[in-house]
């Protein structure tokens, strides 16, 4: 019976076009579409798998952002027991050091045996959140995890290295794990179930009065990449492009 906390944040949806703010120092958040960090989604799946296997309770914590409530209700529909939204000056985007302090402060109250979070997020500029939370709570951290088994007072985890090598590690609990991939892909949940949760479940709101930004970095300039060399683009309709591609395949000896 583990008490599990999952730490989750919303990140820019990379399918959408990203724009830079007028100051040229950050993303233009007015136009940003946000989605759950995909690695956090894997962390939630891993948390639910552990609960299904060993019992326990799952608390999900996420900072305020566009779409965060729908995301939290979705995790409830999947099997999370408690949802906490951190309220404060998060909407403009804060660094991970500040976020980690807020997560740590809130997670502490739930005396977790295990904290799971995504190994990274696409907008990390000052390192991932997980190891920072671990250090602020004085817990050990291991990242790049793709498999977790709980035993008495410890977790046995599989840590990924380059080339497909795995390090099997023993981690003393309580601990924070940075999840690269859950043992199963994140499950889908019917929208009707999410709607049901919107009616019955409640999101706790936790006020974070002041954000401590120290340890993060100051970005002097943010910009879209200006490629020195770009691919030679092949134009035309489907048939013309196919013909040109086949010519290229022949040229490299693939045909």
């Amino acid at each position, binding site marked *: 019976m583990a008490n599990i906390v999952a730490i989750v944040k919303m990140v820019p949806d990379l399918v959408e076009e990203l724009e830079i703010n007028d100051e040229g120092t950050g993303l233009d958040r007015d136009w940003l579409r946000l989605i759950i960090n995909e690695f956090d989604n894997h962390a939630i799946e891993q948390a639910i798998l552990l609960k299904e296997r060993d019992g326990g309770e799952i608390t999900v914590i996420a900072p305020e952002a566009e779409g965060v409530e729908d995301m939290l209700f979705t995790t409830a529909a999947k099997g999370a027991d408690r949802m906490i939204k951190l309220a404060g000056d998060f909407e403009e985007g804060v660094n991970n050091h500040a976020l980690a302090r807020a997560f740590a402060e809130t997670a502490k109250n739930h005396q977790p045996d295990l904290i799971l979070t995504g190994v990274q997020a*696409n907008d*990390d500029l000052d390192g991932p959140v997980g190891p920072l939370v671990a250090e602020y709570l004085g817990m050990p951290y291991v990242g790049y995890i793709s498999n977790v088994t709980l035993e008495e007072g410890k977790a046995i985890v599989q840590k990924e290295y*380059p080339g*497909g090598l795995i390090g099997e590690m023993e981690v003393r609990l309580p601990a924070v794990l940075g999840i690269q991939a859950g043992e199963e892909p994140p499950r889908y949940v019917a929208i009707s179930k999410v709607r049901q949760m919107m009616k019955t479940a409640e999101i706790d709101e936790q006020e974070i009065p002041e954000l401590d930004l120290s340890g993060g970095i100051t970005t002097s300039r943010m910009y879209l*990449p200006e490629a020195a060399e770009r691919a030679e683009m092949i134009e035309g309709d489907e048939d013309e492009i196919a013909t040109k591609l086949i010519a290229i395949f022949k040229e490299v000896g693939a045909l």
Partner: protein
Amino acid sequence: MNQNIYVLIEHLQEKVTEISYIMIAAARDLAKETGGKVVAVLLGKNAEGLASSLATDSVLYADHVALAEFTADAYQKTVASLIQESEPRAFLFGNTSIGSDVASVVSARLSLPLISSCSQINDGKLTSKICGGKIMAESELAETTTLITIIPGGYKAEEGQSENSPEVKSFNAPALDDLRVTLKQYIEPEAGDVDISKETILVAIGRGIQTEDNIELAEELAEFLGGTVCSSRPVVDQGWLPTSRMVGKSGQTVKPKLYLALGISGAPEHVEGMAESEMIVAINMDPNAPIFDIATYGVEFDFFDLIDPLLEQLEEAKG
């Protein structure tokens, strides 16, 4: 504080990993700016020999049984105590399974600033790649020792290699007891049905393939080309292809004659495994997909609209 740039050397199973050399090359660019030396920090047990290939001014080596293999706790303690003693201008780590576990924790422990995912250093300016390679962020060293994690892309590993073994100085690891993380064993990757790192033609699929059934289309195409299907991470995480087919950070590094990328955006984690391909042809609907910045030829098109005419013409060509 001194002006030296320290680099945490990563090694696994008695081999220095490629990112270590890339970091050394980056550190040399940074040291030009600060006027300091580049110092490799090597932690291990009887691992001093690994220092010989490092293109640094010197090597600081700590020998301890608890450092024989990488574990987060022991590395964090050793690096934190070394920073407190010697206060380098900057400390470089890989943005990897090893470096990321160390850099962030040391940042929080010593209250030092951390810049992550940096791929290039020019005139003291550090450029980080975020949002899957779609956004660049520029920053500078802070007033205190600055921790930096490095991603591949800006430097070649050869630039950080040398045959002139640098001078090795030993330093003492701090007390490494009461460690909360231990390595039980390494598990070698299962051999796949094919070794994609040896294939000369690869048809790579990414998130854009949308469903498991669509993989057949890529396989059909690969068959015509005499190649093999491989993929980026999301396809493997869905369980649609075995891990042995994964290209990138925790997968394989490939250098085929032709890398045909279908619906692959080109996030840095994927690119580091295939950037050295002789020819890259990328088909993607998103004109801003970073894959077009490294591809030889690009097609801004929905792959699903292209596949039928392509297969038809291939059939005809085959005659």
